[in-house]
């Protein structure tokens, strides 16, 4: 075999070695999480990528290195730039036991409408939250029912029903922490998440 016949072979071998890789980035809020490499080539590993702006090869024994001054490659930066914006949350309050919005919440409805309009492919989750009065199961049912009521209200005000869904979170996500069985108008709310 002559040398020039070897060249394509070498190129092929190099391409075959092109490693899968990953890059850990800082979160948008400045912190960062971790990615564990649980398995490599079918074998369990203990490797964990813990530092933001590190690149790890995948397969074989993982090598983890800082990105360095050169940072992300152009195609990687383009990929990150293409991520959808984070979901946005709006809180609505209602007069107790009614579907009548408090005066403070009325303008929020218009902000909500504007947010949906500027997001192509928007999807909207109407989430009911209760206070800690009553047991968990009752509050799950109550918050679900509340979310469905408000979804219907929004639909009647021209919001597209086909992009909305109702979820009851019960008393799991209190706006203001309280003990059990504490009545709290601040915790009885509907959160609308626009994705």
């Amino acid at each position, binding site marked *: 075999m002559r040398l020039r016949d070897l060249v394509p072979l070498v190129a092929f071998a190099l391409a075959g070695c092109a490693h899968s890789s990953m*890059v850990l980035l800082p979160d948008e809020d400045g912190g960062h999480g971790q990615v564990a490499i649980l398995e490599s080539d079918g074998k369990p590993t203990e490797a964990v990528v813990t530092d933001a702006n590190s690149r790890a090869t*995948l397969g074989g024994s*993982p090598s983890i290195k800082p990105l360095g001054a050169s940072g992300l490659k152009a195609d990687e930066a383009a990929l990150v730039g293409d991520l959808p914006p984070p979901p946005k949350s709006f809180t609505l309050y209602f007069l107790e036991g009614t579907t009548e919005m408090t005066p403070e919440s009325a303008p929020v409805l218009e902000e909500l409408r504007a947010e949906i309009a500027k997001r192509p492919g928007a999807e909207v989750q109407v989430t009911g939250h209760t206070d800690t009065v009553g047991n968990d199961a009752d509050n799950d049912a109550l918050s679900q029912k509340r979310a469905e009521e408000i979804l219907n209200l929004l639909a009647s005000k021209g919001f597209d029903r086909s992009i909305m869904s109702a979820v009851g979170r019960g008393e799991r996500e209190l706006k203001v922490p309280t003990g059990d069985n504490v009545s709290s108008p601040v915790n009885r709310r509907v959160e609308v998440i626009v994705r």
Partner: protein
Amino acid sequence: MVAKSLFLMSLTALAVFPAHAEIARVKSSSGSAIVQRGTNHIPAKSGQELLAGDYLVTGKDGRIALTFIDNTRFAVGPNSRIAVSTFEYDRTRQTGSFVTQVDRGSLAIVSGKIAKSGRDAMKVRTPNSLLGVRGTRFIVEVPK
């Protein structure tokens, strides 16, 4: 008795997460970009819903950006083939499990509620590795 409790269990499972439920929506796409569902090839236009088991497939000029119902966000790069193999999510408790398989191409991920719900509740599989996602933003690249 057993049959009855199995029946009740399946009812509960349905209530928590109905089969064929929407798990994500496409926000934007460009170039050759499709959602492959079984033998169906659906254009990945903005607003297109995703179901568990769907593949995201892009050509050399293709891109897809999407957001899941647990707030996870994906950006799929060109020449990619990516499956959402498992997506189970209890929207009331905000817990679940999420497995994505990157056969080829590139994927940027910002993890959401599922990743927060338990250690390695969100995993990403590549042809030669398995990753456990612990609440973060990262990129996976699998060259052809």
